[in-house]
């Protein structure tokens, strides 16, 4: 059982979290300018790094999505970061 630090709630068991995808997979748009290939890459192509990775996770109990840096081999967790932008 891994433990992840939610930037809002602190250290919690992994069963409280869901994986939300790799960080930095920006949605290509507008649709009219996106190629089939580009859309397929957005949907399906992951880099699956061995080692240090940046991922989006959601803490189901508070509902917040955040950035998690961890090692996919050793399962070491380096840091988590809120995705909230500063209030304008």
């Amino acid at each position, binding site marked *: *059982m*891994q*433990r992840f630090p939610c930037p809002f709630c602190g250290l919690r068991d*992994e069963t409280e979290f*869901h994986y*939300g995808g790799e960080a930095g997979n920006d949605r*290509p*748009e*507008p*649709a009219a300018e*996106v190629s*089939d290939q580009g*859309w397929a890459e*957005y*949907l399906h192509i992951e880099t699956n790094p061995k080692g240090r990775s940046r991922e989006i996770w*959601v803490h189901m109990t508070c*509902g*917040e*999505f955040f950035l998690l840096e961890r090692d996919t081999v*050793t*399962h070491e*967790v380096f840091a988590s970061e809120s*995705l*909230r*932008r500063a*209030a*304008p």
Partner: protein
Amino acid sequence: MTAASQSKQHTTSTDALTFTFDGRALVGRHGDTVASALLANGVFTIGRSFKYHRPRGFWSAGAEEPNGLFDIRHQGRHHPNARGTLVPLEAGMEVRSVNTSPSAAQDRLSLLDRLGRFLPAGFYYKTFLWPDWHLYEPRIRAMAGLGRLDPAFEPPGNSPQRSLHCDLLIIGAGPAGLAAAHAAATAGRRVLLVELQRQAGGSLLHRPARIEGLDGTDWVAATLNKLSDQGGELLTSTTAYGIYDHNLVCLWEQRQGRPDRLWRVRPREIVLATGASERPLVFENNDRPGILSADAGLHYLRRHGVRLGERVVIATNNDSVWPVATGLRDAGARVTIADSRAQASLPAPEGVELLTSAPVTSVQGRKRAEAVIVKGRSLAADLVLVSGGFTPNVHLYCQARGRLHYDEERLAFRPGQAVPGLQVVGAANGTFLLADALKEGHRSAGSKEDVPRAEAALEQFSIEAAWPDTKLAGRQWIDFQNDVTLKDVALAAQENFRSVEHLKRYTTLGMATDQGKTSNMNGLAAMAAVTGRTIPEVGTTTFRPPYVPVPFTVIAGRRRGELFSPVRRLVLENAHRQAGAAFREYGSWLRPAFYGVGTPEEAIHREARQARQSVGLFDGSPLGKIEVMGPQAAALLDFNSYNRLSTLKPGRIRYGFMLTESGVVYDDGVVLRVSEDHFIVSCSSGHVPGVVMRLEEWRQDRFDPSQVVVHNSTAQWSTLTATGPQARSLVAALDLGVDLGDDALPHMAFAQGRFRQWPVRVARVSFTGDRSYELSLPAAGALTLWQRMLVEGQKREATLLGSEALMILRAEKGYIVAGKDTDGYTMPMDLGLSGPREKRQDEYVGKRALFTPEATKPNRPALVGLEVEGSEPLPTGAHAIERSGTGQRSLGFVTSSYWSPMLGRPIALALVEAGRARLQQEIEIYHLGQQRRARVVAPCAFDPEGARLNA
């Protein structure tokens, strides 16, 4: 004191415990394990082996035991594969041998052993290939195997589960573990010490030693006292069975008279003092009852007062047996040490015969050892004790990602590189001498105090390899529990299964419930010998949790039965029960499937017919009620949905889809606009959590979260529906203060009313095609309103409507259930909703995917209706097929199919390739060898004009 005289002492003792073995009454005493009690009673044949049904006896006194498995029933508990070496004896226990018939002593299948040479590894799979292995499998499996689960068994109580954080978790309370615990507790750290035996002390309980001037056992007691004074905790009969991610250690605590307990421990640091397991030597008939590990022989003698034999031969390749020999000599046995080494490194103990260059090559005797063959000479022996060296118990270290290295001097795989936060000490680290083990344990706790001074009977340890000799004749056992012989290993090598992982799978070596604790080293050494490699070149298999088999009841705890996957319950469940509802699970909700008496089919058809004739009352409370609020609410919903919602007027309702980014229909449902910046998303019941999450994801990813919020109020509000020609009159009688005129409240509009103190949302949405009113109010008011509706319903010949009848009503109209009438490929165009795809200029979820080559191919499936001859509905899941030449292919499948009581004929919905182009055509329907013909029609079979919506 012989075994027999020992048993006499048992019967006269005041602390006698009676129990049965294979139906025979025996007597043990307090402090016994099942194993020590059986041995004290002279029971050596305790079971039959897995494959050949050979008589087997105990090998060890610990967790590594390969043979001593029993079916134990006691006080309502049933443990089908209990390790007798670790189970404390209790009065009244019913102990049965496993894989025997009728008993361990007289087993009918023992003739299998005589066929042994015809049954090598892989024999059954190779022989029973034709026509199909599965024809033979049940009978072959019935002959093999272990204990049997009783399907009717219910544990008398739930296993509690506890979580604990501590500074230091020490696993194993032998000398090294005790030294570590004591030093750490003295330094003020919070310590938990666990021991899988019932008593802490490890080898100190049976191997003579003096520590700090105290006798070994006294030092154990004194150290435990100090530990307890310093606040350290000790758990005995507790096995640490796995180390998982981020230093989670799971413990299985066996308790007498109470359910076992599971511990989840998160220590800052871990000390592994898990000891080592003695290895067998490999010679002919080395599996006979009466051949035990030398250390176990001393264990049973010193801990339980059971001397296992009078004429003892100790076969060894190392020094560790010297204290065993003197212990048995002192107990009156005649002892011979048969040392395989040319020169023993220690002199013969007084009164003990020492033979050198004297490997045991064979054992005679069937149900009990009678003699050994040494240097071609037969030597009488009723007990053969064996030490082939020690294998450190490194399982937990390896589970924590440790890497082993092979120590040529100690002939053992030992922990190699350090694992952060984890130390391995004592015999588990290959440190077999007492003084060194104490030192390692003590230092692991970071103590600056002096190391405890120790003198042990064994002051040196040297060992010389005596690995399996493939040139030796006869059947030599490597894996006792799975009946793997040396020849099987050679056969695996011959058939090129040379990798240690292949060896394991081909021969099943190390795959039994003991996971090869006593056999893996000999197996891979044999493979090394056969293939001319070194032992480290062959390597070990992967160590995975659990260290010992753990009962599922312990892992499940209270998550069993109803709590395994708890259902969600309606606020009105009791009212529905009183009305005679039959409940079924829909999604995670327990809902009325139908009401009243008669067969389910009769009840369902009656409800469906009556709802169309008068009025049906339906509890639709699980329907989604997700509130989306804020200045960016409309923009969020526009992006989330296939249909635009920003153009919806307050007070109105719109039906539409949500897509995945792949363009596939994820859910359908309606959205209500309460005001400019307040919407309610009424998605389907099963999709509520998913819709909330996707709304949250896009809200946080794409919008300013301070400008829009998503709130799920599904559980706080109930939704009660009236549908049918009498629905309006019934709702009018409820006096909700809402103008029900069709101008004020047309189809797809809603209004706010009141029922007593509760606000009520009156929405004209229809899932039946008839005029319908969905009344949503806070759950607290649901029962009062429902009772009022029942009273008004009685005046109008209303029917209660369960989910099954509602399914018929919606299918008559061709209304879909997302996930039932759609699959993982269905796009909105397939369901006839192409408008937004053609018109919307803005972005929405899944948009780009609706323009891929796949999405635009002309023969995409379409939702259609099917008409058939006769009265038998089509089976749901039946395929529409097209024949061409000799072949046939699927055109799609039936998604929903019912008997329609209103139409008096079957109806069906289907997804069929290019379905709209086939309207009015006949197609062939195929299901499990049966063929029927069906005509493709529009999905809506009932009231296609929609007149009844306003009737």
